[in-house]
């Protein structure tokens, strides 16, 4: 198989909106982009695929004017540039929806959506009057286009008060408020549930029908196939393939991205043990979840899924003691445990890998070593209360090896690692307390294909060693590949249980939605 189609002879027709030619970018000794060329045509969809660190974000920054390339040519609507400034790029209609959404949390929805239109209109000059009427009109039009309310109250809402899914749409509304010709979306669906993704895909279809080009950066191949269009595959700062995405299989794309063979099949092969490890009875904390009962056997991998508002997130945090249940009991190895605080969960051998690893889990400016021993620092102390660094390093080295971390330098700050490696450090930290039960909340959110593979293998190794694992996730293929059983939650209750071997994505999704309508009636 050799779908390495034309790289240099990319269709450079006159109708291309934007074309990159032989772009190079170096950061110190790192050659982040090595002669990247591709072109973007109006109304077309593109999927920029590749592992973390392959140069995707660098190329986005070149297109949005945030970075100056070292070599190469940017051709924007027929004009040639060495580099672009942010205002040039915006004025030409290139809009970027960053993964962090780049919203200003202290400003209103209307300002977040439509202020930039006035800024671009003034050519970046700030010595201009600010037109509130036009702000509201522009914002309302853009909000309607993405299916958000456009009334005054919503326009005046402060963005930090909005739920995440709405913030995502607000960010997209901002992108189209300036009559965009090309919208770049950096992992737009990471934090969205399937329903919200459907809405997003509808928005994208409408943008395309209006002649707007859309460039996705994503790890979710299923969504790329649903949207269609062109694939642009990056590896090590080079464009290794481009062409219609339908021409490539998932397996081919994964291999192009990683440069090695990836097993897309089921990771789970072992059988769970017979003994019951963990049991939850009548767990309730209204309105998030109620009457939740389930059990996990030793060596079992249990999946829990549901829409974002189904209570799955709150349940995960209740098990870990982050925000405890109001009533109900929890037993581990046959005895009831009282867990009101994360420290109690740790003492009982229950580990919790949070969903938002940046905000809740990692100390980004601290080293790998310090992050990995964070939970056991007290045990590593000698009589004087001084941490035994040698012992800590030995432990950290072992954990890093178990987690197949791809660096040997344990003093590297965690913030310098890729998303996949960060996630491995976070999971690795929990191995230090030798947990009996490990709750993984969205273990591969924002993680690339290669790292996903490693994390899945680690999960299976842990289960084979007798640990009980609970994966709370909305990545259905992930659950199907890794779990023994999958529980579906909705409106705070468990509404279905599936054997992972005997079900499929559609069934799970149907259960998530069907139960929603039942509950609503």
């Amino acid at each position, binding site marked *: 198989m050799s779908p390495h189609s034309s790289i240099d002879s990319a269709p450079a027709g006159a109708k291309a909106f934007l074309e990159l030619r032989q772009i190079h970018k170096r950061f110190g000794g790192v050659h982040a982009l090595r002669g990247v060329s591709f072109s973007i045509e109006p109304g077309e969809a593109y999927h920029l695929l590749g592992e973390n660190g392959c140069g995707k974000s660098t190329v986005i920054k070149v297109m*949005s004017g*945030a970075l100056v390339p070292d070599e190469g040519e940017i051709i924007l609507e027929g004009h040639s540039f060495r580099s672009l400034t*942010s*205002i040039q790029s*915006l004025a030409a209609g290139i809009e*970027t929806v*960053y993964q*962090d959404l*780049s*919203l*200003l*949390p*202290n*400003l209103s929805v209307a*300002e977040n959506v439509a*202020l*930039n239109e*006035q*800024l*671009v209109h*003034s050519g*970046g*000059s*700030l*010595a*201009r*009057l*600010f037109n509130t009427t036009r702000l509201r009109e522009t914002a309302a039009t853009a909000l309607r286009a993405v*299916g*958000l*309310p456009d009334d005054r*109250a*919503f326009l005046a*809402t*402060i963005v930090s*008060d*909005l*739920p995440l*899914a*709405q913030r995502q*749409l607000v960010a997209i509304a901002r992108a189209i408020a300036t009559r965009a010709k090309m919208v770049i979306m950096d992992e737009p669906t990471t934090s969205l549930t399937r*329903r*919200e993704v*459907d*809405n997003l895909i*509808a*928005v994208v279809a*409408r943008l395309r029908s209006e002649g707007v080009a859309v460039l996705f950066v994503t790890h979710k191949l299923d969504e790329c196939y649903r949207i269609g269009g062109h694939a642009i595959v990056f590896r090590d700062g080079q464009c290794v393939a481009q062409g219609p995405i339908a021409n490539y299989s998932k397996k081919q794309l994964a291999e192009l991205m990683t440069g090695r063979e990836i097993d897309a099949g089921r990771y789970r092969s072992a059988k769970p043990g017979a003994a019951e490890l963990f049991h939850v009875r009548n767990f309730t904390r209204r309105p998030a979840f109620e009457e939740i009962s389930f059990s996990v056997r030793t060596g079992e991998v249990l999946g829990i899924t549901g829409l974002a*508002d189904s209570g799955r997130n709150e349940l995960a945090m209740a098990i870990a003691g982050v925000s405890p249940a109001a009533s109900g009991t929890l037993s581990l190895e046959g005895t009831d445990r009282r867990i009101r605080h994360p420290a109690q969960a740790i003492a009982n051998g229950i580990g919790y890998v949070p969903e938002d690893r940046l905000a809740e889990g990692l100390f980004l400016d601290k080293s790998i070593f310090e992050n990995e021993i964070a939970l056991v620092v007290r045990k590593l102390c000698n009589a004087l209360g001084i941490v035994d660094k040698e012992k800590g390093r030995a432990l950290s080295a072992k954990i890093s090896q178990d987690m197949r971390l791809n660096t040997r330098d344990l003093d590297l700050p965690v913030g310098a690692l890729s998303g996949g490696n960060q996630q491995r450090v976070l999971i690795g930290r929990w191995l230090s307390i030798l947990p009996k039960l490990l709750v993984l909340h969205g273990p591969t959110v924002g993680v690339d294909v290669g790292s996903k593979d490693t994390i899945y293998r680690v999960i299976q190794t842990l289960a084979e060693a007798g640990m009980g694992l609970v994966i709370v996730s909305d990545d259905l293929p992930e659950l199907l590949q890794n779990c023994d059983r999958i529980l579906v939650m909705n409106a705070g209750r468990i509404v279905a249980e599936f054997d992972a071997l005997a079900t499929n994505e559609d069934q799970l999704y149907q259960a998530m939605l069907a139960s929603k309508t039942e509950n609503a009636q």
Partner: protein
Amino acid sequence: MSSVELETAPGTRGGFSLRELVRRRPEVITFLLLMAICVIVSVVNPAFLQPSSLIDIGRASVVMGLFALGVFIILAAGGIDVSFTAIAAFTMYSLTLLVSKHAPWIPMPAIILMAMAGGALLGTINGLLVHNLRVPSLIVTIGTQYLFRGFLLSFIGTVWIMSLPPQMGAFGRMPLLQFDSADGRTITLPMYFLVLPIAALLTWWILNRTLMGRAIFAVGGNASVAGRLGYNLRTVHIFLFAYAGALAGLAGIIHTCANRQSNPFDLVGTEINVIAAVVLGGARITGGTGTVLGTLLGVLLVVVVNSVLVMVGIPSTWQRVVVGSFILLAAAFFVTAQKKS
């Protein structure tokens, strides 16, 4: 399009609640606190409500109010400034010296403009340093506070100027309102009081009606995001500090004219008082929030506390205890209100 019912945001719909109001408009608490103090004080000592004490409060608010507007605009952009008192002392003293020794012919309006220009210049230095060094503005302005003050005392002078040039003295005495009180004293609201409402209106207008104003709040929300969206951070930083510097220069010259003397050792050391007033007015110390009205209310609150404690028989040494407790109280209130959201 496929109608997706997205959950409504908390607080966008539903009934009115005090908590919600406080969260969105924290200056309501400042206002209520101010009212409560005024009511209590006037019950204990009705003399408080006499025009003379109200005018005293108004007069005492001008300099602090101008400083506070400067601090607020920088706080709105996520920075902090502690050099403004040094800027004020620098401009007021050097200008007084210049006018009395070398150029007594300069008319008062020109003196005021020169004070603002001098302040803006020193502020620009702050802005350039903050932008180019990429160091927190607190550190930069601690440094420049020492620098400006050290330069003033080493190279310009340390001698207290006790007699002002005539036009400056006249400006300090020029009445806006004048009447005789019941006990026969003449009470004057000076002309320079007008400067505060004018500066407040201008600041409000810049913040709410110009792109620069919105850019300031955008930078206060998240500077790197604002930069990515195309806001010119350099322009914003320089404008901010220059504007705050101009206000400080103005405050300095008014301070001198009002006190009819120019003391180079004056003002420095009162920064915390001003920052306290701004924070009491509902601006978050982390930046990106606050209103001009809240800032003025915060200033009034601090000035009232400072001037009325004596009237109800509390020793003036207790001022700090009271202001400190208010700050903690207000902070606790704002924080709980935010957590509930």
